[in-house]
């Protein structure tokens, strides 16, 4: 927070309202709300807007920031142990299910319905219906839109006469062709592909990007993690094996230490012009237009995640060529399955908090998501917020002010729109204990595979057995029911 901004806001308010009216105009005077989130991005806008909100309503917002890797457990420990020092959190919708299981999250449905200013119609359908809701009730207020997308260097691809890759095979071809060229202009060879592959970081989501484009072709409710018939993991099949091949092949065209790169490392790498291709969330776009950090301004583009011309036959475990029947949503014969990894940061409120505090926390989240605030915040790289409202997808003065040219905006926002409106979007895993399925079993097996500790078959076996074991531990029938509920399968 800038002291200057704070002072300016404060004096402006003081001049407007005058001291005596203080108590009356402010519904939440004297209320303090402790909001927890991750450090850095996400924390920044929450903290920056807190004084404005206080000036409006009198509620003091106290932002607590912890490193991303500790956030889930920190909230859980605080609420599960009954400490309740945290009144509200901004976190991943994926975690919602665990918090709801403990009864810690406040049902926000009535509040949202009574809220005139929140403009829910403007929020992307995916976020409104999936990220914010659980079994029909609204528990979170989306503040950020998150999709995996592909980023590329327009100039490099043009110079090499290459088209923007549409499938994973093309991705590898482009990566191979561009690898080793100098793209940043410093005289050293750069890399064809940068994908975060660090263990215990945020890289396990990229596995699902590749697998999903082959396992899910019939729409969102088909799902990509488990067979909706009997909760069998969709792992022991050719799609998963091909995805593993893709990961190890792409490593050859990546930075030498790619296995130790998190998204937080690949982002500056792309922005400093050292990668021809990159997979990431929307953040790369806003970082690439930040003049302080970017060397690729005007030279980059974004596109929907590559797809596959073959999709998995769930019964045989073999890949089959796309037809109108098995890939109803294919574009030019390619089945795309954009992955709503993480699902966007959103605010949720502790059910055990004081009613007045809950109201203030809700008012704050509503304030943050209203277009007046949000449409400006999503254009700034430092916020960590990416577009999630329809009104944010058009080129506006705000985007212009942020430094994005109209052409860049068309490509970037177009890619987001393509992903957001895809009927075949992949929903992230949201069954209880999903952290163990993904962050422990999947992440560990894939990183062991990439490090050469185990081979492809052993990796498939490790994931399959690990997921089956978790199914048994938590209760297979219950998990199946919840899995189907979260993706909307019949």
């Amino acid at each position: 927070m800038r002291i200057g901004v704070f002072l300016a806001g404060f004096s402006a308010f003081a001049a407007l309202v005058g001291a005596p009216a203080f108590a009356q105009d402010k519904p939440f005077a004297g209320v303090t709300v402790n909001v927890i989130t991750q450090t850095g991005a996400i924390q920044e806008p929450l903290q920056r807007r807190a004084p404005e909100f206080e000036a409006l309503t009198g509620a003091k917002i106290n932002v607590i920031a912890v490193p991303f890797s500790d956030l889930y457990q920190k909230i859980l420990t605080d609420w599960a142990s009954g400490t309740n020092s945290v009144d509200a959190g901004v976190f991943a919708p994926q975690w919602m299910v665990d918090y709801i299981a403990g009864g810690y999250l406040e049902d926000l449905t009535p509040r949202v319905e009574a809220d005139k200013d929140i403009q829910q119609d403007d929020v992307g359908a995916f976020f409104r219906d999936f990220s914010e809701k659980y079994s029909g009730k609204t528990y979170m207020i989306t503040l950020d839109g998150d999709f995996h997308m592909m980023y590329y260097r327009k100039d490099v691809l043009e110079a090499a006469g290459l088209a923007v890759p549409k499938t994973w095979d093309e991705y590898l071809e482009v990566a191979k062709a561009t690898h080793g060229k100098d793209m940043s202009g410093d005289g050293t060879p750069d890399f064809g592909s940068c994908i975060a592959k660090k263990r215990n970081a945020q890289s396990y989501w990229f596995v699902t990007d590749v697998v999903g484009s082959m396992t899910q072709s019939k729409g969102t409710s088909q799902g990509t993690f488990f067979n909706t018939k009997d909760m069998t993991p969709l792992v022991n099949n050719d799609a998963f094996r091909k995805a593993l091949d893709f990961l190890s092949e792409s490593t050859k065209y990546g930075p030498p230490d790619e296995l130790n790169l998190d998204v937080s490392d690949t982002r500056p790498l792309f922005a400093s012009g050292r990668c021809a291709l990159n997979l990431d969330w929307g953040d790369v776009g806003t970082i690439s237009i930040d003049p302080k950090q970017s060397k690729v301004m005007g030279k980059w583009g974004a596109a929907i995640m590559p797809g596959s011309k073959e999709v998995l036959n769930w019964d045989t475990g073999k890949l089959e060529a796309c037809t109108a029947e098995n890939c109803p949503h294919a574009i030019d014969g390619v089945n795309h399955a954009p992955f709503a990894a993480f699902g966007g940061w959103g605010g949720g409120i502790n059910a055990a908090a004081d009613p007045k505090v809950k109201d203030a926390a809700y008012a704050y989240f509503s304030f943050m998501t209203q277009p007046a605030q949000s449409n400006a915040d999503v254009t700034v790289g430092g916020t960590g917020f990416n577009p999630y409202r329809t009104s944010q997808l058009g080129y506006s003065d705000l985007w212009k002010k942020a430094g994005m040219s109209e052409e860049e905006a068309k490509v970037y926002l177009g890619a987001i729109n393509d992903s957001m409106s895809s009927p075949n979007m992949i929903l992230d895993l949201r069954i209880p204990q999903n952290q163990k399925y993904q962050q422990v079993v999947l992440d560990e097996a894939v990183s062991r595979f990439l490090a050469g500790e185990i081979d492809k078959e052993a990796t498939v076996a490790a994931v399959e057995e690990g997921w089956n074991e978790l199914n048994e531990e938590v209760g297979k029938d219950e998990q199946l029911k919840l899995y189907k509920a979260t993706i909307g399968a019949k």
Partner: protein
Amino acid sequence: MTATDTMPDAADRRSWAEWLDGHSGRIMVLPAVVVLLCFAIFPLIISAYLALSRFALASGGFTLKFIGLLNFRKLLVGSQQYHLLGKFGTFGFVQFALLALIAAGLFFLLARYLLRGRPTVVGTVGRLLVTSMAMGLAVLALATMAPGGVPGTVVNTLLYVFVGVSVQFALGLGLALLCGQPIRGRNFFRVLFFIPLMVTPVGIAYTFRMLADMQKGPFAPLVRAFGISEWSWATEAWSARLMVLVGDTWQWTPFMFIVLLAAIENQPRDQVEAARLDGANGFQIFRDITWPAIAPIAATVVLIRLIEAFKIIDLPNVLTGGGPGLATESMTLHSFISWRTQDLGGSAAIGYMLLFISTIVCVSFFNFVVRPARRFEA
């Protein structure tokens, strides 16, 4: 507690001060005991219970379900075995030879104790326990490092502890000997070399991540000049472990150095001078005078370091997140990761096994190395 004072009570007056003085021993020890009971014994018992149960979220809070030794079974022989113990390779000739060597060594030590000393029941049982554990760990280390095997977190931790502490000791001793020479600027070196100890381990981990960056770190041009820009320490198990060890060594060598230097400065000057006059060379002086003088300190300082080394977490966590694969994951990090993903029972079980291993190692080091070294000095 019954305290028997060495001093006889002077009079029979029953004033408060008198009472205080009479119980002074107990009162002096009491705060320490209470603090340790609250923060060590009590948590340990709770953790033991946790290690035997499964944590689950339930509406309004959480439940702990007692599941017996299931957490341990999963780690030792079940689906998590590869993680804690590792994947076993095939034993070749080299492995058998090494194992035979270790077994012979352990057997020799045991036999020497039984034959030469006066064996006691406690001593014999303790040694049998230590010997069998050492043997078990040796088999584990050899099997997982054999071709086709992958070491788990136990072997990684042992590597950090034994390799790290030995290297730090060797470097610290070497530097202390150099600094112990009659040179100018000794105090300058002493303060300068002490600095790494003051940097928070998390900070060191990030610092070494910056330094070891193959793209934009200070050594990147150098590495490129050697034409190995296509390789990175982070992708191979051994180089990644080495990196963790480098960071650890950078931080803890100063600790060894500062204490050993003090010890060397305190060695009997007159004996050294006499030996010099007699024409003894540097090595002889070291062997006959310096080493005996510093051995007790050396043993103690290694023990302190040994105890701390088992707790390593910050460096691998920040440098590599435990990767590539499982290559750099220590037991504390393993436990921490389990904790982070709600597996509180598994986390406690790993913690307990770490406690078990480090207690046996540290206690036997104390009994078999530190005590004899101190007696040797007396």
